[in-house]
């Protein structure tokens, strides 16, 4: 019988609390009772893995899903998925979704009075490569208003969903853009106490991935929980 090496827990303040009253939707949905600490068992150190059969290689280019080009500023969003020890997380599924350049989602619940783009769905996915790298081609999403508080506008962002190699490493987050004037006012971006942790959600402008006369590059690395030291055989 070998005991299980679990995944590490986040440092205090580096993840949001469930209840963050400035984000009004959390008030009636956040648990009110303390969470029960769950030691990681075989259930939590395993998790769904997705291979090439579950993915479409064309889905990493959000600008090529229709006959025409979407409107807006073409961008490259790329980076790596690593664990806390900077080890690549290979062949893991990343799903992304976003508003179009006008700040409108292709979703029936989005009533913002901005145009839909017939050439943009705002949905993509890809697998990281053996070195944990990924790359999307898309357009820069627009800011949009929401009803959280008076004159509330969300900063431009792209939603990221990442599985990692285990149930314990599952992560959904949002990537923001450098220099966005709306960031200081956004209760979702600001839900995490630790300023450095927050700021790691802001992508970095990246000359390396910028394509001449074609698209600006932004780099966004995602860090998943790292592994505890392997326990001794019992």
């Amino acid at each position, binding site marked *: 019988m070998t*005991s*299980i090496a679990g995944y590490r*827990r*986040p440092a205090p303040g*580096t*993840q*949001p609390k*469930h209840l*963050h009253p400035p*984000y009004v*939707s*959390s*008030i*009636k*949905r956040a*648990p*009110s*009772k303390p*969470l*029960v*600490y*769950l*030691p*990681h*068992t*075989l*259930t*939590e150190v395993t*998790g*769904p*893995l997705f291979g090439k059969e*579950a993915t479409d290689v064309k889905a990493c280019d959000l600008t090529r899903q229709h006959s025409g080009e979407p409107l807006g500023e073409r961008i490259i969003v790329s980076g790596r998925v690593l664990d*806390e*020890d*900077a080890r690549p997380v290979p062949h893991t599924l990343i*799903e992304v*979704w976003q508003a179009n350049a006008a700040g409108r989602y292709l*979703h029936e*619940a*989005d009533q913002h009075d901005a145009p839909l783009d017939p050439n943009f769905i705002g*949905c*993509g*996915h890809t697998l990281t490569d053996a070195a944990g790298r990924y790359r999307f081609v898309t357009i820069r999403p627009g800011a949009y208003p929401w009803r959280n508080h008076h004159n509330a506008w969300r900063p431009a962002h792209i*939603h990221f*969903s990442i599985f990692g190699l285990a*149930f314990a490493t*599952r*992560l959904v*987050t*949002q990537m923001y853009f450098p220099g966005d004037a709306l960031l200081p006012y956004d209760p*979702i*971006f600001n*839900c*995490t106490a630790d300023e*450095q*942790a927050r700021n*790691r*959600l802001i992508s970095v402008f990246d000359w390396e991935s910028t394509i001449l006369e074609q698209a600006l590059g932004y780099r966004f690395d995602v*860090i998943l929980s790292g592994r505890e030291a392997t326990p001794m055989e*019992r």
Partner: protein
Amino acid sequence: MSLQPTTSQTVGPYFTIGLAGRRRSELAGAGVPGEKVTIAGRVLDGDGKPVPDALLEIWQANSHGKYAHPEDNQNKPLDESFQGYGRIGVAENGGFLFTTIKPGPVPGPDGELQAPHIAVSVFARGLLLRLVTRIYFPQEAANADDYVLNLVEPGRRGTLIARKTAVQGALEWNVILQGADETVFFDC
């Protein structure tokens, strides 16, 4: 050098755009061995109101208690056609339903077998992090000795155990996000 894990953010209200592609509410096709079960329920908020914009993700072992994952090195058979993954959207009334097979027992932290269970992640607008919970099975003798259930105060364990219904093989299990009957959520 140690990096800090990326901060979680809410899925927001529009996650179906990005996450609908891998929805799966029928986890086990016709040929998959095991006891077929249907699990249905509702996601409710602190006022008891339905949460229409939530998403559940499921992870479970096959009927032999084997996970389709390289870290499960138990000497038990895999079922080629059963991954153990599910992703289920919630309807306007907060309702969800999925069909699967009852998982077999898997080892726990104390070296004993855990009672059969399904791991669940709950995502929704308003949840800044996913919520992690488990579904156990009713009238299961192993529940009494289950390591994880015994971490939970006795009065709340029932929130983790699905209930039988009048229909054979149909179980009910609800996600109460907040309040007196709040579902037990884990720090995972």
